[in-house]
């Protein structure tokens, strides 16, 4: 690829040079020749006319002298052979027109009335010449010649020729310059191309081809030599670089290893927040222990020998000594805790003392290397946690006991209340029954009605008490029988029982295939009883009550749904549905004790499941509860 230098390219410069030179030479030559030609034309024209005038003058001298106008006119008529001469005249010495001549076919030329002074005058395309006729030293008259002066015609012709020649010469010089530039620039372009390749690819093995034996050829040789030299230098540099790189790599490897080791050591030392110490085989400090000194504030004199004991809490050194003695006997590492004086905080702090015996060649203890690690903070934290835990446990136990007691009290209270309430209720029911049977005839209609109300209300109260008793029994007794239960059969059984009293086919109650569950059958029967009864109760007011019971296994749990198209409820009361005695409707609207859903929740919860209700006012409700799934699909 040749770099594009545009108009700065050598090719263009050469081309332009040749063109400009040729043009300049042509112009100079053309102009010079033009000037020369026009001058010589003028001179020749003037000389020619002068000669002509002289000849005519001489020939006409006698005619003038002897007054022969005809002869003079004949003389002038000879000018017919000179078509360039437009007009001619001979004047006598007095200036009177003696004879005249007009070019044949020419329009009338107004000849001057009087001759002008001798000489030549150029007027546009006209040359006027006056020449005296002299004879015997006397002026005999004047010859006047008027000739075409084709100066401009000649000029234009000449310019045309110059232009034509210039164009031709330019064309030739363009061809020549093409050839010349090819012969000069091709080698240059070749060198340029190679240079570019070298620069782009850094390939110093490239060589320019030498095609000429001139300066460019020399340039090519020099360029190639230079490339070779550069290639050599580059190679040498590369080799030396590689050697250097290898050295650097080795060195940095060594440095890295050193740095790693150093870092490891430093990390190790840093990681050891403990005090490092050494003692001889008699457990005496013999060397300088800077870390010990810094922690305990003891001077070297103070801790030297067995002086280190004084840094420990007065109660601890004995235990430590005995531990150490055991370790020394067994030649095993020592580990025990003690309280050591900490100079910076001016208090005894718990430390973990560890020491390992360094054994000599004969398996004897040469010295001990040990550490003292401050574990005071950890110790205190552990202490605190232990204390808090103990406190918490105590409080939980206490509270549980209180709760249990209260609960028991409450339950037994409610049980006994329920139980105790039953006896008077039974009495009320029994006596009102007796009253109804024995005194029916004596009671008027109003009396009978009131009696019916009493019986109805007492029956309702009995049911309430039954429910309460069942509910409180649920809290007290554990679920004992966790059996596999066919929920489909159970739900259908309950539905059948509930629908027994209702008009056949009025209610649509579909029980789909349900997954089996693990649980207490009698309790779960209560769940179905309450949920289906509930649904029948709230959908019953609809012209066509519809209840769908569905179920599935989701995430290992059996899920059951009871959906109805009853009056529904507002979701903001959803939380209250499962409370005891919580009712969303008055007893007049829908009968019930307000305990049913509480029992459902308690049963399901005690089985480890959950229950929830979804609904909207006027659009029915859906109760969903989960239970542990049965072993196999029922």
């Amino acid at each position: 690829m040749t770099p594009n230098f545009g108009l700065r390219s050598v090719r263009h410069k050469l081309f332009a040079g040749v063109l400009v030179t040729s043009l300049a030479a042509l112009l100079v030559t053309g102009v010079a020749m033009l000037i020369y030609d026009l001058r010589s034309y003028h001179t020749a024209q003037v000389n020619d006319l002068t000669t002509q005038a002289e000849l005519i003058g001489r020939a006409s001298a006698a005619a003038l002298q002897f007054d022969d106008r005809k002869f003079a006119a004949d003389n002038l008529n000879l000018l017919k052979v000179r078509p360039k001469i437009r007009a001619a005249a001979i004047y006598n010495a007095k200036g009177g027109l003696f004879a005249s001549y007009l070019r044949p076919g020419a329009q009338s030329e107004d000849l001057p009335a009087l001759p002008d002074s001798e000489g030549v005058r150029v007027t546009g395309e006209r040359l006027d010449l006056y020449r005296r006729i002299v004879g015997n030293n006397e002026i005999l008259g004047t010859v006047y010649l008027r000739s075409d002066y084709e100066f401009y015609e000649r000029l234009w012709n000449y310019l045309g020729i110059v232009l034509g020649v210039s164009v031709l010469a330019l064309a030739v010089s363009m061809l020549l310059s093409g050839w010349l530039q090819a012969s000069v620039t091709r080698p240059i372009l070749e060198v340029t191309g190679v240079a570019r390749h070298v620069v782009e690819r850094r390939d110093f093995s490239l060589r320019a081809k030498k095609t000429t034996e001139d300066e460019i050829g020399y340039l090519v040789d020099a360029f190639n030599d230079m490339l070779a030299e550069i290639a050599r230098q580059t190679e040498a540099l590369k080799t030396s670089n590689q050697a250097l790189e290898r050295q650097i790599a080795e060195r940095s490897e060594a440095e890295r290893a050193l740095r790693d080791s150093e870092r490891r050591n430093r990390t190790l030392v840093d990681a050891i927040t403990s005090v490092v110490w050494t003692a001889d085989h008699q457990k005496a400090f013999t060397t300088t222990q800077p870390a010990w000194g810094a922690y305990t504030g003891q001077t070297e004199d103070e801790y030297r020998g067995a002086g280190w004991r004084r840094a420990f809490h007065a109660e601890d050194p004995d235990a430590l000594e005995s531990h150490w003695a055991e370790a020394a006997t067994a030649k095993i590492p020592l580990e025990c805790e003690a309280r050591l004086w900490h100079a910076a905080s001016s208090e005894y702090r718990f430390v973990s003392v560890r020491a390992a015996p360094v054994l000599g060649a004969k398996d004897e203890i040469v010295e001990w290397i040990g550490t003292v690690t401050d574990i005071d903070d950890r110790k205190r934290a552990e202490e605190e946690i232990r204390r808090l835990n103990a406190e918490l446990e105590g409080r939980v136990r206490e509270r549980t006991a209180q709760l249990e007691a209260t609960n028991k009290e409450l339950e037994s209270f409610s049980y006994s209340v329920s139980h105790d309430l039953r006896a008077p209720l039974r009495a009320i029911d029994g006596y009102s029954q007796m009253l109804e049977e024995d005194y029916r005839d004596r009671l008027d209609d109003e009396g009978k009605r009131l009696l019916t109300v009493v019986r109805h209300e007492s029956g309702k109260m009995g049911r309430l008490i039954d429910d309460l008793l069942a509910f409180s029994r649920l809290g007290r007794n554990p679920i004992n029988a966790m059996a596999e239960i066919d929920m489909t059969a159970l739900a259908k059984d309950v539905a059948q029982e509930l629908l027994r009293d209702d008009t056949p086919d009025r209610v649509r109650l579909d029980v789909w295939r349900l997954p089996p569950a693990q649980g207490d059958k009698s309790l779960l029967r209560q769940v179905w009883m309450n949920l289906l009864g509930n649904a029948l109760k709230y959908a019953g007011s609809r012209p066509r009550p519809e209840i769908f019971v569905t179920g599935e296994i989701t995430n290992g749990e059996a899920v059951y749904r009871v959906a109805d198209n009853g009056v529904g409820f507002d979701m903001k009361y959803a939380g209250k549905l499962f409370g005891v005695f919580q009712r969303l409707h008055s007893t007049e609207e829908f009968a019930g004790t307000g305990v049913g859903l509480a029992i459902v929740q308690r049963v399901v919860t005690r089985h480890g499941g959950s229950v929830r209700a979804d609904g909207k006012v006027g659009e029915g409700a859906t109760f969903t509860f989960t239970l542990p799934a049965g072993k196999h699909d029922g």
Partner: protein
Amino acid sequence: MAFLTSMERITDDRSARYRASTASIWIAVARFALLALCTLCAGASVAADESPQDIEQRVKAAFLFKFGGYVEWPERVFPRNDSPLVIGVAGADVLAEELSRIASGRTMNGRPVTVRRIRSGEPVTGVHVLFISRSEAGRLGELLPTTQGQPVLTVTETEKGLAQGSVINFVVADNRVRFEVSLAAANRNGLRIGAPLLAVAQRVQEKAQ
């Protein structure tokens, strides 16, 4: 009209004396034109007095003077370079007078020109040009033979001048003074007539009749 032109010729000859440098020539011409106008007026008045014959004589006088410029005499007739050219006039007083006036102070080919009157009976010697007027026609037979073979340019103005042996003979054609030349007579007299003169001659007679 023809004579008027001749008059111009005469004054023209006179004006030729104002020979000057080229630069000053037209100053002279202008001055002369003024002068010529005056002399023309004067001349007209003179001409009014003069007869056409007089005018003819004047023109012939001018021609006589000019013939000298176109004729070559043998060298021997002029002893020196400035030997005068002698024009002899037989008869024709007006012409002789006019010729004297023209010739006075002028030269012809570097020679002064003198006019000599030839009385009847006088020998014709030492003249280069001899004019024999019509009035002297009777003496033609006497004068011409004496000059035959002599280097004398004989000029006559009779009808049969050339036949009688004269070299140049004046004739009048179309009211203009013209002349005819006999080359034979010239040869006989040892004279050479210039071609320009022959060219303007009305007739050139080559051989003797």
